[in-house]
């Protein structure tokens, strides 16, 4: 299995998903050799973790979610490697894989690669080992860019990867359509495999108590603050919500290239004093924020899956998610809205803040439902795919 990042060194859901899936697969008896491009201080006691030591040649690696445009706006001073380097990193990973894979000849049955950064390496491994390749798709270049200026090289790598792969596993049905339409992937090669979640709720020390004691309700945005996640719709809905529920605080957890925009937009609408920006949080702090929230809003413009929705449910937080997310295809006990329908987003958010029974039913039913989406279930589907390709 080839990945790009693992928790705690992850910039988003990709690392979490790889980790969760690998662990569930190993519990079901699949032996995993997990290859990361460079050495990280991570532990995987259930898998054989190896590093391709790409940084010997490539220097620092870029985050999995960075696009060309966002890269240049994030790092204008050239403090980090130039834009092309994450593509370079992916290719170096492939180069290293050529050497690595030879050592594993005969001991590997399936090569399973997560997202385009590992596809070049995956294709090399498939050739060297002469084994089937599974291309798992957590996001395409169209999701990352919202369709604006997809990087042609990244697109080409993705497309090639899907062509070479024996099976392609998108994390949602909407993404399946994208793969067919934009990448011409053969429909029979595609099998949708939804993500899962394993955590169970731990009751944590409350946070934001000062606001809570004053009777404020908390509405949460959690995710990378990028175009893909729809932060602008969140701010506009906040304005409408405040017209009806003035005692509401909007917490923004995450970072990204639209953070500045979000702040200035809230200021322009005169509601910046109702916003709290926490920056990127992980682990316990992240769960505390979920637990403090009366509502988690995920207004993603394009969300192949949306694992934060499951995280919120585990933490007993009611959900309002965009219909443009993969997770909305499976979740029943969540409020759903088109990402662009700010009015309806506000209407539903106000209802949760106003009617406590709605909040409590979304919590109890949501918690029951989230147990159905375990990584173990996803692993069963993946093993099924393995069995189809291994002869």
């Amino acid at each position, binding site marked *: 299995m080839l990945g790009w990042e693992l928790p705690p060194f992850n910039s988003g859901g990709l690392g979490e998903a790889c980790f969760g899936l690998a662990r569930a697969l190993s519990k079901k008896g699949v032996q995993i050799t997990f290859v990361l491009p460079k050495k990280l201080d991570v532990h995987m006691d259930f898998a054989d973790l190896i590093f391709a030591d790409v940084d010997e040649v490539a220097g620092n690696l870029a985050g999995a979610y960075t696009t060309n445009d966002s890269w240049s706006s994030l790092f204008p001073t050239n403090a980090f490697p130039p834009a092309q380097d994450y593509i370079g990193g992916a290719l170096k990973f492939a180069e290293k894989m050529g050497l690595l894979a030879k050592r594993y000849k005969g001991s590997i049955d399936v090569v399973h690669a997560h997202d385009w950064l590992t596809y070049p390496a995956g294709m090399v491994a498939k050739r060297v080992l002469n084994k089937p390749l599974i291309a798992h798709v957590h996001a395409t270049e169209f999701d990352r860019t919202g369709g604006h200026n997809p990087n042609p090289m990244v697109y080409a790598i993705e497309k090639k990867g899907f062509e070479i792969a024996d099976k392609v596993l998108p994390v949602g049905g909407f993404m399946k359509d994208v793969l067919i339409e934009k990448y011409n992937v053969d429909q029979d090669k595609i099998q949708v495999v939804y993500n899962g979640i394993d955590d169970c709720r731990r009751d944590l020390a409350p946070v934001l108590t000062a606001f809570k004691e004053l009777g404020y309700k908390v509405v949460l945005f959690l995710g990378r603050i990028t175009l893909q996640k729809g932060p602008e719709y969140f701010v506009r809905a906040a304005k409408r919500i405040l017209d*009806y529920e003035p005692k509401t605080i909007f917490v923004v957890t995450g970072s990204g290239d639209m953070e500045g925009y979000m702040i200035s937009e809230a200021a322009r609408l005169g509601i910046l004093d109702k916003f709290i920006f926490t920056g990127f949080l992980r682990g316990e702090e992240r769960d505390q924020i979920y637990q403090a929230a009366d509502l988690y809003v995920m207004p993603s413009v394009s969300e192949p899956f949306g694992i934060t929705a499951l995280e919120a449910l585990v933490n007993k937080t009611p959900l309002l998610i965009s219909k443009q997310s993969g997770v909305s295809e499976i979740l029943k006990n969540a409020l759903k809205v088109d990402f662009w329908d700010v009015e309806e987003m*506000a*209407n539903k958010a106000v209802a949760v803040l106003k009617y406590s029974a*709605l909040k409590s*039913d979304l919590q109890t039913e949501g918690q029951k439902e989230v147990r159905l989406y375990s990584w173990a279930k996803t692993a069963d589907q993946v093993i099924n795919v393995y069995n189809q390709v291994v002869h």
Partner: protein
Amino acid sequence: MRVKRYRVFDVGWDHDYFNDNTETNLNNKKVLAKVAAKSYLPTNTILLKLLENHPELSLTYSFSGILLEQLEKDFPEILDSFKKLINTGRVEVLSETYYHSLAFFYSRKEFERQVEMHKAKIKRVFGVTPKAFRNTELAYTNELAKWADEKGFTAILAEGWDSFLGWRSPNFVYKPKGTKKIKTLLKNYKLSDDIAFRFSEKSWSQWPLTADKFADWVSRINGNGQVVNLFMDYETFGEHQWEANGIFEFLRQLPTEILKHPDNNFLTVSEAAKAYPAMDEVDVPYIVTWADTERDLSAWVGNAIQTSAISLLYSLEKTILKANDPELTHDWRRLQTSDHFYYMCTKWFSDGDVHKYFNPYESPYDAFISFMNVVSDLKLRIEKKKQPQKSLNKKRKHIETSRNFPNSIGI
């Protein structure tokens, strides 16, 4: 009857809760037109013919007041076809609540008012006075039977559910516990559901169900039962079970097939209660309905959103009635129709399918949100009414009457 999509922004401005005019199933007029064409009209035509051809045949119907209102306003020809059936003199009409509500369990006084309103409506429309009672969703308890007994009803309907029947058969007439004269008729849910639920089910071992096969099942009860009570939604014919699957053919042949057996005949509810003595007493201290595997009220008031919505609605009773505004009261009562709460049911994973089939909203939570926003508006209207006159008498256009998804009719 469905509340339209009603958002928090509409509160205080829009008081027409039932006038959806989209192409969705929230459009009450559209839904009734569809059901009337697919079910009521063809079924009425068939049954009228059958009544003409079979002097032994008799039937019993139960209409809610709001259905009749909607038919009067938009579909008078459908109402006429029902009148023709009742004018044969061999069709009984049951008593129920005007608004198809669960009021008995929330306000006895309001319940009684709705039963009275219904009685007046039936008298006005059909010229008859109901003698037997059936509650909304067949929701039944000892208490209800006692009430009906005191009111002089001759019979009351209930689900023939195993929890209180035990080894006993639903195919006899019973006496409800604590009553003097009234009798209870119990639904034979097996045979009723063979038609209402399983008729088109190809995976069912008895598919296809033919009239002679069904008549044979009914006849086998002879010697070990006196009545076979088949209660079902009228929409079973043509709407739940489609014409293409042969439901109308089945209906056309059924009386002939049943009457082939010399021991069989047809009775209305009141006739059956009169014809047979009570075999035993039934004791139902808890609520039994005809829904789902639980046969309780959990499809309507099983979760927090349902219970909070219905409690809020009934908590307005005093202030609404005090306001003494017919439109306000009518709106409040139309919100009591049990369907509103049914749409908020979250029992997705077991009984979920049938709920989803009937749910015109995207989710139970959406149903709740619109309903609660409407009740917020209703509360606001009461508040305004209490204030001095000038702020209030905003001219309102005539409320477009809404239409109710019709109710069950027992045969």
